[in-house]
């Protein structure tokens, strides 16, 4: 078996820890794999719940992602374990979206994501904090209503910082299609937020 620590030299202690855990998991140590799960489950859930705005479905997708990661540990070829897991989670989220598309009876509820609020500036006054929370709520509600493809592209590009080429590879479409989805998605968001744009114009 390929020793990941030997092939992937990294000074980043987090990456090094991840590679050691993954190496041990590949040798059959389930606890080591579960340590990785504990480290990344919140982050992956936070990522997936933006793409699949239903907490139960998002949780199922994250569980599937960890199953898939465990099944495909041998396929890991070095690099960042976090990026590898994120990609698996994004694929699981897209699978969940496709499943939802086949059973469209229940539209997504307004994104049940009010458990988290954007970090407010410590010096921000209560009015500003309230405004931030309201923006967040309105934006999540609008994001839940645009198409899966548009939401995925916008979340990956605007929120997670993937570039067009990476999103194109992840979603198996051309770069032009990714751009188009992002542009149309933003236009759709503007339409959905038309009555509340004053919130954002500040």
């Amino acid at each position, binding site marked *: 078996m390929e020793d990941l620590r030997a092939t992937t030299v990294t000074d980043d202690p987090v990456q090094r820890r991840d590679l050691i855990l993954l190496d041990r998991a590949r040798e059959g140590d*389930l606890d080591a794999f579960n340590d990785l799960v504990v480290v990344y489950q919140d982050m992956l859930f936070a990522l997936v719940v933006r793409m699949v705005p239903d907490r139960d479905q998002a949780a199922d997708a994250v569980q599937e992602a960890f*199953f898939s990661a465990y099944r495909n540990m041998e396929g890991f070829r070095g690099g960042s374990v976090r990026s590898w897991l994120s990609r698996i989670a994004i694929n699981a989220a897209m699978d969940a979206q496709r499943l939802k598309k086949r059973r469209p009876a229940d539209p997504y509820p307004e994104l049940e994501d009010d458990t988290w609020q954007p*970090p407010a500036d410590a010096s921000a006054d209560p009015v500003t904090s309230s405004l931030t929370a309201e923006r967040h709520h309105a934006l999540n509600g609008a994001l839940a209503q645009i198409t899966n493809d548009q939401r995925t592209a916008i979340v990956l590009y*605007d*929120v997670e910082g993937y570039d067009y080429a990476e999103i194109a590879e992840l979603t198996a479409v051309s770069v032009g299609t990714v751009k188009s989805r992002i542009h149309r998605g933003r*236009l759709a968001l503007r339409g959905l937020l038309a009555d509340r744009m004053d919130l*954002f114009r500040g």
Partner: protein
Amino acid sequence: MADPTTGHDEGELAAIARHALHDEELVAAFAAGDLEDAIEQERARALVERCATCRDIHRDLAVIRTAIRASGTAAERAATMSAPRDFRLTADDAARLRPGSPIARVARRLGWRARLDLGVAAFGRPVGAAMATFGVVGLLIGSLTLGGGPGSLFSAQSAAGPTSAPGAEGSGPATSTIDGTNFGPAASGQDTKNPVPVSGGRDTGTQGVATVALLGGSIAFLALGIALFVAARRRAATVAQR
């Protein structure tokens, strides 16, 4: 003068009508800085400069993008929010998901005896069936060689010379076959009880030995194939019961 149904004046209505012809996606691409073509950039810039609605779109999209970016990456959000459940794998999950073929996974769970049973169950049936088929084909070919087909021993025998009719002993040249060896007519003055092989009898004899070997091998193949097939079926049933 304001339109009584919409409240817009004529100038606004004209602007709305004009905007209906404008390409909003072009404006969105321009707002995102994604236009590489100079002509498209110029078109988009002209729309934003001359059309109030396009200008609003351009401004709003920038605002929306900023708001989305401010909503926090997954890593930032994970610092303050928790997943609704624990996603750690159980030992059962791990056993179920461990890499390998389905047969190997089942075998791992059941032990070495099951591995043997599964191996026989998986490969015994096709191999057994193939062996039995070879056996049947061999038997057919052997039978044809022994029987009356072209190239059979009997036709080879006919080619070697005229056969005496039963009860016509001594009335003409005669041949007989012992253990596949063709014996020609006794030479004049020779004892017919000690026949001498005729020219060509050696080939016919070799063919006879080969045919017998073929038949024997075919029977062995057929028997082994059937035995393997039956054993595989029994093992498969045993594994299924477990």
